[in-house]
């Protein structure tokens, strides 16, 4: 049962997300989410996993360099433009090639659990607030008093300094997710 839950958790999340995107008529985003759900299911297959491992070994360094250069270029490109669109579309292969991580043993399980539950609580709080605002604004009940994060941040992203301030932590998180390795 636990194994089945592990297999379907992320595909279900992405299918739900696709449904939400279709609700606001963002069909491209919805299709992207559906593709992510399919990739999640494919990753379980041994043949796919070994093919990705081979690609990762061959292209790992190249993708790392590409990642840094592509995102640095975004500092000089306005949002929602064709160059920004291509930066993100070209980065998709990097996500497919992410490598597995080694298990990190917890020296202090209590501190680890505390941190885990705080992180989970923050994610749930953010998720509920954003989903609530999203549903209220997308159904047209009230889109002025319940802005989503997108609506709040969009004016800042059109400003060069604002975009830089938001892009740097975004790049840092992405670098950690894609390329971080166990500290030895």
């Amino acid at each position, binding site marked *: 049962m636990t194994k089945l839950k592990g297999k379907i958790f992320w595909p279900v*999340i992405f299918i739900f997300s696709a449904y939400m995107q279709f609700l606001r008529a963002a069909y491209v985003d919805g299709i992207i989410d559906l593709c*992510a759900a399919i990739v999640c299911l494919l990753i379980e297959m041994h043949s796919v996993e070994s093919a990705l491992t081979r690609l990762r070994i061959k292209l790992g360094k190249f993708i790392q360099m590409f990642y840094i250069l592509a995102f640095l270029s975004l500092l000089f490109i306005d949002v929602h433009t064709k160059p920004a669109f291509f930066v993100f579309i070209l980065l998709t292969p990097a996500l497919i090639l992410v490598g*597995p*991580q080694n298990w990190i043993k917890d020296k202090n399980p209590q501190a680890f659990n505390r941190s885990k539950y705080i992180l989970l609580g923050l994610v749930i*709080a953010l998720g509920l*607030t954003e989903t609530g605002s999203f549903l209220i604004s997308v159904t047209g009940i009230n889109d002025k008093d319940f802005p989503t994060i*997108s609506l709040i941040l*969009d004016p800042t992203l059109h400003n060069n300094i604002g975009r830089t301030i938001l892009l740097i932590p975004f790049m840092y998180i992405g670098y950690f*997710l894609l390329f971080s390795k166990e500290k030895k």
Partner: protein
Amino acid sequence: MEDILISIYAAILATTVGVSIFAKLRPEIIAPFSTVMNHILNNRKTRFALAFSWWWIGWHFMGSPWPVKMD
């Protein structure tokens, strides 16, 4: 209502930053988020899903040619 909602987002962000700093200073009480994330990322599918979610946020905010509607 808009101000309350922005305050909630700000409070979540402030808590995250505060806890992160505290975790860096006192890792014996709260483990740093990077340790928890490294543990979570051990699973290949979770790693893909989180990396995808991160990519989508960037795409939605910056890359997508279909910006959010501003009235």
